[in-house]
């Protein structure tokens, strides 16, 4: 097993090495500050009430209470704050994540095909064209069902449970699944996307630092769900090119 830096993970959010993750983390932190503040406010009021209005000799409950104004303001504040969260944070972040795909000519395109219980990573190779996957050819030695006699498939690179990407370069990952629903999760990238059989769903991201990280499966996919772990490596462009060369299919002699 490759050395994994323990500083990446802890009791809170893992480190973030993506260009879009800081906005997500900021939202999560703001939300928790809001939640804790609201909870403490409520809690103080509740405990104060419990002590002040405890049953004791000589103390009577009040039937007629004046209408409280404060709760109405609190409700309005909560509603307004939620509107701000939606319009100011969640909508733009999701819009960027889903819709603002990088230009395909500059980005690296990778296909990831999930199966019980592995991640098949498919690079197009030198020609930049992905060979077609055929279900009837999918065998243990050829998990993606590539027809190597096909021109486009000849230089395709297939890596199992290893996703390498270059740093500082937008990457588009096209996700699909061969069998059941999995979920492609890169904790350090703040990327999580279900892989749904019968659908191709793209996600994109850009890494800001190199290192060895993990791919996790976040959706129950069977008895091996817990060990559907992949390696996610962010390389410098040179290291990435070297790795691709090593992985490239050798011409048959």
């Amino acid at each position, binding site marked *: 097993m490759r050395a994994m830096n323990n500083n990446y*993970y*802890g009791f809170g959010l893992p480190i973030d090495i993506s260009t879009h993750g800081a906005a997500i983390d900021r939202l999560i932190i703001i939300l928790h500050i809001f939640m804790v503040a609201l909870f403490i406010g409520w809690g103080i009021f509740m405990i104060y009430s419990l002590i002040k209005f405890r049953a004791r000799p000589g103390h*009577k*409950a009040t039937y007629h209470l004046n209408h409280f104004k404060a709760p109405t303001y609190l409700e309005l504040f909560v509603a307004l704050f939620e509107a701000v969260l939606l319009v100011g*944070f969640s909508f733009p972040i999701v819009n960027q994540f889903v819709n603002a795909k990088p230009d395909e000519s500059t980005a690296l395109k990778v296909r990831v095909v999930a199966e019980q219980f592995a991640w098949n990573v498919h690079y197009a190779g030198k020609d930049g064209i992905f060979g077609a996957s055929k279900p009837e050819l999918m065998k243990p030695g050829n998990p993606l069902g590539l027809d190597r006699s096909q021109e486009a498939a000849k230089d395709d690179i297939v890596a199992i449970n290893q996703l390498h990407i270059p740093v500082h370069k937008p990457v588009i990952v096209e996700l699909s699944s061969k*069998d059941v629903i999995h979920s492609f999760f890169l904790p350090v990238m703040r990327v999580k996307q279900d892989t749904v059989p019968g659908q191709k769903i793209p996600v994109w991201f850009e890494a800001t630092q190199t290192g060895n990280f993990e791919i996790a499966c976040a959706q*129950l996919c069977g008895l091996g769900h817990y060990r559907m772990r992949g390696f996610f490596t962010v390389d410098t462009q040179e290291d990435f090119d070297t790795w691709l060369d090593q992985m490239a299919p050798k011409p048959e002699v």
Partner: protein
Amino acid sequence: MSSDHSHDLPFWKKYIFSTDHKVVGIQYTVTGLLFLFFGFCLMMLMRWQLAFPSQPLPWLGQFFHEKTMVSGIMLPEFYNQLGAMHGTIMIFLGVVPLAVGGFGNYLVPLQVGAPDMAFPKLNMMSYWVYFIGGVIMFCSFFLPDGSAQSGWTSYPPLSVIANQGQTFWLIGMVFLITSSLLGSINIIVTIVHLRAEGLTFFRFPFFIWSQLVTSFLLVLAFPPLEAAGILQLMDRVAGTSFFMPSGLVVSGQVLQASGGGNPLLWQHLFWFLAHPEVYVLILPAMGIVAEIMACNTRKPIYGYKMLVYSAIFLGFMSFLVWAHHMFLTGMSTKMSSFFQITTMIISIPSVIILTALVLSLWGGSIRFTTPMLFAIAFLPMFGIGGLTGLPLGLTAADLHLHDTYYVIGHFHYVVAPGTIFALFAGVYHWFPKVTGRKMSEFWGKVHFWLSFIFINGIFMPMFSMGLAGVSRRLYDPTQYAHGLAVQPLNVVISYSAWLLALAQIPFILNFFISIFAGKKATDNPWEATTLEWATPTPPGHGNFLTEPKVYRGPYEYSVPGAQHDFSPQHLEGIN
């Protein structure tokens, strides 16, 4: 005091195949509590594996079949079975039957002043259909390959290609859903048609409102899941492909299915039920808490009408938020924006209800009885559950938190220290009415404080694990570096869970001993105002000695000028 004016029925008609709503309610309650305990036991087994992955389970391990544990070491397929069945049992066989079948059946006719449910035979049938569903679920553990193991959500294609247990699960679900439909129609008709004279809608105790809204949710939301369950059953046994796309390759074999289906269709149908289901779990709990708080603060509930309007609005909105469970299935931003907005809107009535309940403490004269302690604890616990729903309802934050332990922590705070605490409160509160004897206050308080501490020990650390990115439903989270980093929390959670189990011993003993040896209760031991306390204790067949008439609202406590600090609904004039 007790006057049993029932006819002389043979034992089996009086206590087993009874049409008396009270007996049916007790049957539901006892069965529900047993299933709750059974579901908890499944979880305690899982907690061993999670705290000490792949270590043999001491002593107990030897009693398990080799297809579940090999020399005490749990197999992943058994872990998945326990997980799927824990969820199914807790929700469909534990909490809903307790909240709607148990409390609803027993209390609704009493609180509306009716002699029985509108359709007593249908009521009996709903219990026995539920019972059959429970037996099917329970028996599925003894199938050659064990029970269902695709999660309580049963997402296809995994569930369609899964072992035979899934077929049993689907058939069991059809029975459970049918039972809920029968029961909820009964509750609606009873509430609307069998109200006592003078009991207008705005004189209903809030519990009745919560049952009314809950029953409408069940009637409207369960049929789609029943249909979906049958479609999935057809996919499994009749070769259809409602949820199966073409060209699946499972373990190197092209799957022989006609194809052309869509697995996401199931998720839509499932969550169209399962989100309203969340409010089915929480609304009766809020109803119970409102009753107990009014009684023990000796004052009216604050903002009763707001509570009612909020509950109705909550019920309506709960049909419009289901896809927030599916943010990561690749939906467009238009869709996710819609469901984020509806999710934020639905949080407003929840906040109103919680605020009204907290404000109800103000100006009271608070008696810290055992039911009141559980009811008070419900407020902050449900508060945590509700607040932590916020990050999950925003797609951007959900991108990281979806399907992690954060979700587990969130919904358990709603259902476990939330709803189940409210159910405990209800058991302590109405026990004297049902049995004629009170439960021990001392052991009740011991039960409360220990449960309160340990249940937080279970669910609070899960938020940290979720933020760290640990996925749910992992047989061995230490396989991942980010799971290993928070593994100590799993040990804390497991010990808390086992201690929580020990903390239930005072409750169980208190419950059974009090039936026979508890302090005798009067007809109205808590000096409450609602109609169920106007019956003899325990109420006989037909409930009321004379037909009750209602003169005032449900929470007339400490009325100025009254002689007592409670003015029951059925008594004319200020007393």
